[in-house]
């Protein structure tokens, strides 16, 4: 086996040193009736070329070569090649959690830079080293708010990503948390009157998403005021992190739970992604996950360490702030490199391009017969909800025949929107693709309708 660095002679010599007659002697503590006397029934050992061919074949059966307008929590953005060139360095790829600070300064400093960039992006004072993803991060944020406030009612907007809400339900069920759902108004934003009625002096937190699942940017300041007036915390979940290049950060929030996949992380059929939690500094000791801090060594040299670990499971066991141990460090590094590449001016320019592309697409598609842009007057980033004359399934089948993956049908989560679908348009979508999709919707071939 080519990964194993031993010759038969090495093995024999080592067994002799140990004083064992055979390798099986080393397994003698396993009762013989439970020892496997046969080969595992799995595929035979393959050569590297066979492995690559196996996965190439699988890759070809996926939607490779299709134009796509899918978003909804997983975003198609260009990944500069420098990201993988650096993140694949063995010293980053094959190291463990940086508990031994002296030989982990590379990872530690990168996390410190990541934490700083996340604070800048989100408008928060502190950020952790990462969570699994946006969905579990939101659930952890809610549990954190319950610890901070000592309250157990939670109010959740139903414009939070439906799968995030499902994960929250799973987490909350054994925490004694009582969940209330608040709907959206005609503008696609949280219904403030409904929210006001739902928030009481027993409410631990209000959880919203912005831009929300419909792509609509919420009035964070108004919602924060409402939550804070009852002593509840506001948690803002952000699924499309690139929006922060041009959308005002939710600085009025107490906790921000963000999915950073947009920032240089491959779609990869849903993971691994990069959750991250940021908050006001005063909540730091209730924050789950790892934190990297600056300090000095015994000679006064600057360096970085994992810190405040008394919050964590390996110290506090059942009293820890979370059971999280392994996080998404390498993916956070990709995000950190991405934010460094685009930086202060590039993030803005890139976000501006997304805004322009989505605006063009929204109006071009909405101009096709029978189509309508929902929540049209509300501010949006790169997603919008389109209502079509025919059911999205029918429309999408027509689009697929032209090698276009259309918007995500919403009726499975929002039955009140039977003909609506969620479209996402990024810098990866060309005008040609948008026009081609409009052509299908208009049931005729390109050229598309004039841009309104």
């Amino acid at each position, binding site marked *: 086996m*080519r990964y194993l660095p031993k010759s038969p002679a090495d093995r024999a010599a080592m067994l002799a040193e140990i004083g064992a007659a055979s390798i099986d002697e080393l397994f003698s503590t396993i*009762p013989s009736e439970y020892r496997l006397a046969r080969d595992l029934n799995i595929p035979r050992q393959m050569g590297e070329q066979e492995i690559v061919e196996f996965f190439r074949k699988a890759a070809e059966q996926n939607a490779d070569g299709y134009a796509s307008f899918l978003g909804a929590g997983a975003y198609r953005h260009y990944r500069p090649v420098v990201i993988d060139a650096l993140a694949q360095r063995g010293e980053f790829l094959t190291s463990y959690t940086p508990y031994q600070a002296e*030989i982990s300064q590379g990872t530690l400093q990168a996390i410190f830079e990541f934490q700083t960039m996340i604070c800048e992006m989100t408008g928060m004072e502190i950020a952790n080293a990462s969570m699994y993803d946006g969905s579990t991060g939101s659930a952890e944020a809610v549990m954190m708010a319950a610890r901070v406030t000592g309250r157990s009612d939670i109010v959740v907007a139903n414009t939070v990503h439906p799968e995030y809400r499902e994960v929250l339900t799973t987490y909350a069920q054994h925490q004694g948390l009582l969940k209330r759902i608040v709907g959206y108004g005609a503008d696609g934003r949280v219904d403030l009157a409904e929210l006001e009625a739902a928030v009481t002096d027993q409410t631990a937190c209000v959880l919203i998403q912005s831009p929300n699942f419909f792509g609509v940017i919420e009035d964070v300041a108004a919602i924060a005021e409402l939550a804070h007036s009852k002593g509840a915390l506001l948690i803002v979940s952000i699924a499309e992190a690139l929006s922060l290049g041009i959308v005002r950060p939710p600085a009025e929030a107490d906790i921000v739970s963000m999915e950073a996949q947009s920032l240089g992380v491959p779609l990869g059929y849903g993971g691994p992604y990069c959750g991250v939690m940021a908050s006001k500094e005063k909540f730091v000791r209730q924050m789950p996950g790892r934190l990297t801090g600056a300090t000095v060594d015994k000679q006064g040299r600057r360096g970085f360490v994992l810190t405040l670990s008394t919050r964590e499971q390996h110290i506090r066991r059942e009293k820890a702030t979370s059971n999280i141990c392994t996080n998404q460090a390498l993916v956070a590094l990709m995000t950190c490199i991405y934010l460094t590449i685009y930086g202060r001016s590039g993030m803005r320019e890139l976000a501006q391009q997304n805004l322009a592309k989505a605006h063009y697409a929204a109006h071009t598609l909405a101009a096709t017969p029978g189509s309508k842009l929902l929540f049209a007057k509300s501010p949006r980033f790169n997603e919008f909800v389109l209502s079509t004359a025919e059911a999205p399934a029918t429309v999408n089948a027509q689009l697929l025949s032209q090698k276009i993956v259309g918007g995500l049908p919403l009726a499975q989560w929002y039955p009140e929107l039977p003909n609506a679908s969620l479209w996402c348009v990024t810098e990866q979508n060309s005008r040609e693709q948008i026009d081609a999709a409009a052509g299908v919707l208009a049931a005729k071939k390109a050229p598309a309708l004039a841009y309104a």
Partner: protein
Amino acid sequence: MATETLKAPDGAGNPTQKTPYVGVRHKVSSHISQNEGLIFEKSSPGKKAYRLSQLDVPEVDARALLGDSLREDLGLLPEVSEIEIVRHFTRLSTWNYAIDLGMYPLGSCTMKYNPRVNEFVARLAGIAEAHPYQPEALSQGAMRIMWTLQECLKEITGMDAITLQPAAGAHGEFTGILLVRAYHASKGNPRSKILIPDSAHGTNPATAAICGYQVQNLKSNSRGMVDLAELEQLVDEETAALMLTNPSTIGVFESEIHKIADVLHAKGALLYMDGANMNALVGKTRPGDFGADVMHLNLHKTFSTPHGGGGPGSGPVCCKKILERFLPTPVLVEKPDGTLTFDYDNPQSVGRVRMFYGNYGMFVRALAYILANGPDGLRQTTEDAVLNANYVRAKLEDVYELPYKTPTLHEVVFSDRRQARNGVKTGDIAKRLIDYGFHPYTTSFPMIVSGALMIEPTESESKEELDQFIDAMRQIAREAEENRDVVLGAPWETRVSRMDETAAARKPVLRWKPEPTASGAETDALVPASPAQEY
């Protein structure tokens, strides 16, 4: 904390400083490492590392579209060029130790070789660019990879059903205990407590707590194993499960595992197996055969996906038939026509534990590893892992105290008791190991061993590398006797040494900020954040 004390590192130690060794360091020599500040300290307005494609749609007025929601600026995000970015992160990378540099014997972490073909296939466009919501008809390849991995993992563990959704080991524990809870709840009582041995990982009790269970500790016996008599006393109708790591954190296989399972099952309780140490068992024995009802695997340990400086991981949960209907949704199913589909209709499910389908990229890598090994390779891998640990044990047990003489599998746990008499603790020996070119073993864990040195070499080490490690450990043992100050002051040859962790925790500085000066201009320096108010 004064900012002037936070000066940048001035290189590797003091060149005039003598760091004597009692023998020869075979593995390493000192060499120059590059200094590098924070990326923010290199930033200067107008520098760029990007150029966007030309915009092919009309420009828009962002202020008109976003109104009050328009962001004014992006604060302190850096502005640097591409070459500076490449140098920055390359320089940082050289400050890390890694498996690619040498033996990384962290007990319980299974730091094995991360094959590069895994990285290659995970980046094939049809896989890396697959959107989780693309139509199933256009995802059959991606789903087939999941299906094949599921079948392999079920066979390897001897279990009936599986979910790949959990994102890491602790997340798998959470999922597994939710299954246990749902199972008991379906019988009318979710029960109230989980038994956890005192040798367990901290994630076990933390998991039980977030699943709404009380933790009841189970003391280990004199051989470091579950005390059957005590277990029998503790298990009752309120016991939901025992969370057991097997082999245990001292590397010992619970040879009475079937009796443990019987004691639990007699009271209706379940056996949860923490699969962190599965690298000792693959191809040699199967948890499903010896009585485990549910377990998680760590694809980033046993199945070679990279640890990446702390993640991502992946923690699939395998279970017996009795728990299958409670698995998280969606469940992957094969239709009669041979195509795959996700089944979301599972009313008894514990619910979703993560969006989409899990850390998919890790599934691709783990399957590539399984295919590279086949049944013979996996068995040989396990045998080599156990051979390596026993070789280290045999070569060091005369200088380091072995608190449990029980035969061990993939890892060996020593105690620092002999060295501690001279004031040298496990943490000191670990730091000294760095000077010899090795990553330390796991220190001070498991807690049932005082001053533990927990060593897991994995199968990835050659005899030569092991001999160098053994040599280093023996030299350090001599140093502890003859010249203990070189151990207590270690590491001597790293960029930084023995960080002030107390200061870091007392006044946390968790982000960089430019320091405002009297003139109002900003200088680049780290400033401590205001002291955190405690909650």
